[in-house]
């Protein structure tokens, strides 16, 4: 039941916010905050109680809810949680709190409707992480699109309409391709077994010829690759991230992109091991291209938010690489990167948003020397920029290092390419700090340093990155059962390929 509560609290609080905002915007913000905090606390308690005893039992799910929805078509309202989804759900609620706090002063028009959308997009994302019925998954997948569209289109910056529509069309097209694949899988499974079902655990192991599996897998892959985003289907991302309000950018970078990575881990690899194996050379090469391309383009930006947006392309390239390299180290690295990137990039967007609130521009040319007027703010920005470029001791480093190690076992060439990406990342990281914060204060800015509210947001994020960087074991332990299963699938796959070659 706790899984239903996760979602229900957000949905109900969203409506409540909308109603209450007629009388008091402040009350609406507090309700939104209370809802996200409540969910976060619930999920944290759940995690602590499961850890580590329950996690080590090799059951399929830690908890599940399974209600009939339309039984004739084999559709169930089936939510379930395992280590992987638990981690992502905790991240969702944490970034939920961050985004509510980040928009505390930024959003002044339509406060009620804003929080309705904010909480509902979180609910949709939670649904995506928990759904194990493919119909329900697609339902949630499409559902998170609409509130996000509104967040960008109504409260975004200058080119918000363009960005929102582009975001919507990219995800809609790729989502529909996934729908076609889901249905193809559904009918293939039916013709093999005579059972109509959308149940994840039953669809696993549906046997089909490789060439069919490749087509079906591609439908899923494209949907997830667009969300991830993988080069060359990333072009919606810089626009959407740049134009969205701060909370929207945090959710986009921290969570929405992660639904793509989650989808690859949860669906593409287990459902189509053979096809994914066949596809892995292409995916890893595209990932390596993405890593370098994202880093180089980030370096070329003068808009601070756009710069951070392009770093996401680079980091998520690492995730894609780690997933398709598909061994223990790389998978663990991908997971750590997913979490750490959510925190570090989320924090960067919060800071850039806060800066824009103060000086009303995102152009780096209008900045410079900010360290002299807002030293604590600049220090925080420096910390997260360093995390983002992979400074040892912080979360992102662990993730990328593990991915590189894992990749080395498979292909030295790819490792070299990805390492070049790491190098390029220092360029944009340093540019970010130098152009905006170092130097002399040529524009004579006199700004307010971090507000208490901002400290409340930033401090835990610093702590989490340090924790992930120095002692990531609890996160890895939580992920272990899911990863073991993925690895078994991989092992079988390699054996099958070896047998085929003999």
């Amino acid at each position, binding site marked *: 039941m706790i899984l239903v509560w996760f979602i229900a609290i957000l949905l109900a609080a969203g409506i409540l916010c909308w109603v209450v905002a007629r009388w008091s915007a402040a009350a609406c913000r507090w309700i939104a905050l209370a809802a996200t905090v409540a969910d976060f606390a619930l999920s944290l308690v759940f995690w602590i109680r499961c850890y580590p005893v329950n996690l080590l039992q090799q059951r399929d799910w830690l908890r599940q809810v399974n209600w009939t*929805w*339309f*039984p*004739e078509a084999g559709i169930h309202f089936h939510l379930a949680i395992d280590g992987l989804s638990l981690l992502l759900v905790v991240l969702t609620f944490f970034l939920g709190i961050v985004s509510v706090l980040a928009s505390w002063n930024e959003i002044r*028009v*339509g406060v009620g*409707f804003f929080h309705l959308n904010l909480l509902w997009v979180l609910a949709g994302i939670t649904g995506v992480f928990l759904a194990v019925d493919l*119909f329900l998954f*697609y*339902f*949630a997948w*499409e*559902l998170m*699109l*609409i509130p996000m*569209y*509104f967040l960008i*289109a*109504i409260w975004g910056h200058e080119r918000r*309409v363009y960005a*929102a*529509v582009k975001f*919507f*069309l990219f995800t*809609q*097209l790729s989502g*529909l*391709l996934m*729908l*076609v694949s889901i*249905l*193809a899988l*559904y*009918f293939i499974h039916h013709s093999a077994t005579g059972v109509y079902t959308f149940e994840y655990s039953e669809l696993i192991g549906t046997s089909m010829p490789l060439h069919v599996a490749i087509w079906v897998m591609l439908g899923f892959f494209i949907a997830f690759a667009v969300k991830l985003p993988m080069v060359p289907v990333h072009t919606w991302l810089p626009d959407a991230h740049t134009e969205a309000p701060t909370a929207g950018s945090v959710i986009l970078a921290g969570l929405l992109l992660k639904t793509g990575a989650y989808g690859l881990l949860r669906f593409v690899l287990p459902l189509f091991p053979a096809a994914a194996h066949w596809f892995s050379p292409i995916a890893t090469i595209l990932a390596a291209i993405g890593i370098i391309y994202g880093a180089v383009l980030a370096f070329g930006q003068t808009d601070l938010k756009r710069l951070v947006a392009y770093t996401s392309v680079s980091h998520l390239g690492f995730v894609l690489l780690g997933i398709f390299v598909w061994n223990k180290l790389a998978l663990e690295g991908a997971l750590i990167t997913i979490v750490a990137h959510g925190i570090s990039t989320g924090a960067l967007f919060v800071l850039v948003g806060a800066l824009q609130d103060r000086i009303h521009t995102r152009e780096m040319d209008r900045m410079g020397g900010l360290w002299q007027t807002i030293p604590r703010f600049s220090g925080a920005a420096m910390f997260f920029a360093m995390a983002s470029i992979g400074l040892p001791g912080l979360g992102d480093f662990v993730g990328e290092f593990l991915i590189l190690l894992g990749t080395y076992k498979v292909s030295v060439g790819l490792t070299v390419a990805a390492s070049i990406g790491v190098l390029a990342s220092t360029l944009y990281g340093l540019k970010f700090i130098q152009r905006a914060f170092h130097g002399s204060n040529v524009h004579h800015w006199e700004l307010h340093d971090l507000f208490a509210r901002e400290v409340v947001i930033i401090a835990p994020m610093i702590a989490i990155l340090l924790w992930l960087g120095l002692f990531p074991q609890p996160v890895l332990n939580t992920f272990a059962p899911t990863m073991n299963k993925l690895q078994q699938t991989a092992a079988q796959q390699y054996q099958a390929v070896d047998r085929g070659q003999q």
Partner: protein
Amino acid sequence: MSGAGLVAILPLLLLAGTPVALMLIITVHRSHRSALAWTLLGLAASFASLRSASGVAPQQVTPLLVVDQYALVYFGMIIAATAAVAGLAYGYLEQHAVEKEEFYILLLTAALGAAVLAASSHFVSFFLGLEILSISLYALNAYIYPRKTALEAGIKYLVLAAASAAFLLFGMALIYAAVGTMEFSRMASLMMETAGPNRTLLLPGLAMIITGMAFKLALVPFHMWTPDVYQGAPPPVAAFIATVSKGGMFALLLRYFYRLELHNYAPVVVIFTIIAIASMLGGNLLALLQSNVKRILAYSSIAHMGYVLVAFIASGVLAVEAVTFYLVAYFVTIIGAFGVVTVLSHSEEDAESLEAYRGLFWRRPALAGVMTAMLLSLTGIPVTAGFIGKFYVVAAGAASSAWALIIILVVSSVIGAFYYLRVIFALYADTTQEPAEVPPRVAFGSSVLVVLTLLLIWLGVYPAPLLHVIRAALPG
């Protein structure tokens, strides 16, 4: 005719009796309110009689009409949609200086025509139903006659509908000449046996009949009338044309197609495939160029008929189910969307330019919410009926491996999403200029909209009950 036969066509008799009664009532006492009340009463009685009719179904009532569960489902859809249109039309007519009561008479006869189509099993009832429907629509289109656009719509519809009816008749004549019967049930086997020169008559005959049908369904390339008529006609009438008129025709198309086993005729399937592709792409691409909400809805309805055709052509086990569900979802959605247009319209002009919708959310959030729900349903986003409908259509296509059609459906529905988003964005844009004139709230129309929205969400979240009804009614 047996007693059971009479019970079976009781819904039709009531539907035919109500306008006659109404006509007599008007001669005694003219009152808009009571005209609406009688209309709704008649429709309710007709709807209630579906239950007793379903007890005796299936019944062949004279060679002309067959009342089976399938026809009854469509009767139900037609009656409910007509009631919703009547409810919306009330507030709209109140604002216009025209005779109001006759509107309902025409509406009821049009609904009767559509219902006859749904139950038709013979060329004669096919043509009868079509003409009852069309002739009522000529007048309904031009109902707000002081307006030039209304007259234009009426005349355009008159000329083109008459032309398409001529095609249809010629097609029927050719088929009759070839096989010597006008009953659908005997036609299939006779068509199989037909040989020699008579056989060459079949294909032109079928093609002409398809032309007539495609005109009513507004499929590309027989869609030219649609945007002008939708724009000129009163919005409730446009909703009626988009739903009841097309629904009745689709019911007939399905029956005709399956009774005649036309899947065996490769050329016919090819014709429908081309029409489906052209409608999906054409409707959506042309809608991109529009900035008039009524015209956008017109082109979107062309595209949606294309989607329905995909399920129809796929023709697997799921086809009839998918088509019927999609049509129900589409009925609710389109009537809802035109309902918002109706409620926002005032005596000088209808709310058709995008400007009339700009920033509506900040002025009338509920109304904008309804419109958003309807547009999202047209896009096929979850929690709305349109999502389940689209899901079903793609499922029907996937079940019979019609991949090319599905991919075109996917691509064109993304194109569609683009212009729906444009309207949605207008609804939520902040307005700095003077807000457009807001017409007075219409209690009755608004309550219809509330019901439609609830229905939309209910079908989108829990479609199982409706699916049970549809499954129970599958022909054969």
